[in-house]
């Protein structure tokens, strides 16, 4: 009888402690989620159907080291014949595999990703529009080659106008992932946009 009473007391103690622990943990979690989060983002802008792997890796390394969110941003130039805010399915189909690939690599390294596709009349205009909406601590950008990607002038503009650290990487042909040759996401709408 005494043993049974002791067992009941021990059980009640254990349950009380476990309950208290769970309650405290929940409150702590709630307080953490209420705390305003500091925006800490690294922008990785790119164009066309390719991106420098070294740029992706560099951005991921920085993001992991700083606990930052990586924001890969596909920049699309919309023809002046079309409204700026029109859908761009052909460009989106080009951007998707790259964003997926970046997200995959980031997930493997435990880096948070918040991707964007931004439209503009030119790549620079798209960048400008993105900068109006988002804040960045760093920008990692692969320099363009042979008329592809951001031009030298765009990079100078970036250095002058972006209130963040800018890291410009020289791309090499060996470290470029090209997906344009075989697009796995054929679009329903022809690439008129």
């Amino acid at each position, binding site marked *: 009888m005494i043993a049974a009473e002791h067992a009941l007391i021990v059980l009640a103690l254990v349950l009380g402690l476990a309950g208290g622990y769970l309650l405290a943990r929940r409150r702590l979690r709630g307080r953490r989620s209420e705390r*305003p*989060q500091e925006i800490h983002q690294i922008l990785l802008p790119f164009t066309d159907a390719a991106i420098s792997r070294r740029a992706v890796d560099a951005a991921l390394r920085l993001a992991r080291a700083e606990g930052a*969110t990586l924001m890969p941003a596909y920049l*699309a130039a919309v023809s*002046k*014949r*079309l*409204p*700026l*805010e029109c*859908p*761009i*399915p052909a*460009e*989106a*189909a080009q951007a*998707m595999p790259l*964003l*997926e690939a970046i*997200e*995959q690599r980031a*997930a*493997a390294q435990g880096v*948070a*990703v*918040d*991707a*964007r*596709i*931004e*439209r503009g009349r030119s790549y620079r205009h798209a960048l400008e529009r993105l900068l109006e*909406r*988002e804040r960045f601590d760093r920008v990692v950008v692969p320099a363009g080659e042979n008329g592809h990607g951001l031009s030298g002038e765009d990079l100078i503009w970036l250095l002058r106008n972006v209130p963040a650290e800018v890291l410009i990487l020289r791309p090499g042909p060996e470290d470029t992932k090209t997906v344009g040759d075989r697009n796995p*996401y*054929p*679009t*329903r*709408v022809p690439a008129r946009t």
Partner: protein
Amino acid sequence: MSPGRYKIFLGMAAGVGKTYRMLQEGQAEAAAGRDVVVGYLEPHERAETSAQAAGLEMVPRRRVAIRGVEVEEMDLDGVLARAPELALIDELAHANPLGLRYRKRYEDIDEVLGTGIDVFSTVNVQHLESLNDQVAELTGTRVRETIPDAVLGRADEVVLVDLTPEALLDRLRAGKVYPGETAEAALNNFFTVENLLALREVALRQVAQEVEAKRLTVEPQLGTREERVAAEAPRAVGERLLALVRPQPSSQRLVRRAWRSAQRLGADLDLLWVKPPNEPIAGELERHVTALRHLASVLGANFLIEENDSLVAGVARVVRERGSTYIMVGESRPRRGFARLREPLPQRLIKATPPGVDVRIVAHREAKP
């Protein structure tokens, strides 16, 4: 008395043949024995248009003095007194001068319709209020005579009068739209291939949206499952995907998956966030909502926010309203405690939505423990 039927002939620009087509259909109605009058016609000195109006009774215009100058306007009382079965009233976006009963002609038309008279009318797409800014940006020309989009929504029929930009430019050069010098000025300014291509696309999209909105306005059906399936069959014109999202970066993967599926199926895509009522959209949440809205716009999808305490009830309501055939949801987090006793979300969705709506789960990117 039931209101008259309203038919609007919509065009991308002047000269595509809206008035001509309206008169053509008016003549056909008259030939079929209906009492048709021309309430107001703006022939713009176009011989073909004037010829098409021949034989139709015209309600005499009303003369109105504006700052000492007399202008001719539609005589609303004249049309109402004549009480035909069908009135043809050109240019519904026209702004009336002071002294008339209404400020806008579409308001005159509303009164005519209210007396049970059918009306055919015309308008160009740049006059629609919601498209005014877009058209101004595209063409560099802003029109001042605008009409609320609801006017188009109230029409029983909207007929797009379409013409290729090249054909319209040929008509302009031939002097069929404007006389000599005016035509040349128009060709040098507003009437460029680029402007017309963009306006044509805007007009086509507008009519497509009107058609879609009308197709989806269906009363909810009651009855057995078989009866409901049969009743909903006509709506199943095509697939329509609904992706359930939350304003957070991890939803982007679900959106991408949903968009790819929509592309493969040739389906339209809606993104839905069921927002708890009274939850303010501010700070980080606002940033993520803007990002989702932006992504939807890039992909040509619709971003919808439904306020509802119950996720399942909110989704079910939107599924019925939009005629969705597929629902895509993200993988649920592992359930703990009493939540394990609850039925999983996909099952609850299947029960709450109309029969035949599929539910697909998209896995998370993170590695499983």
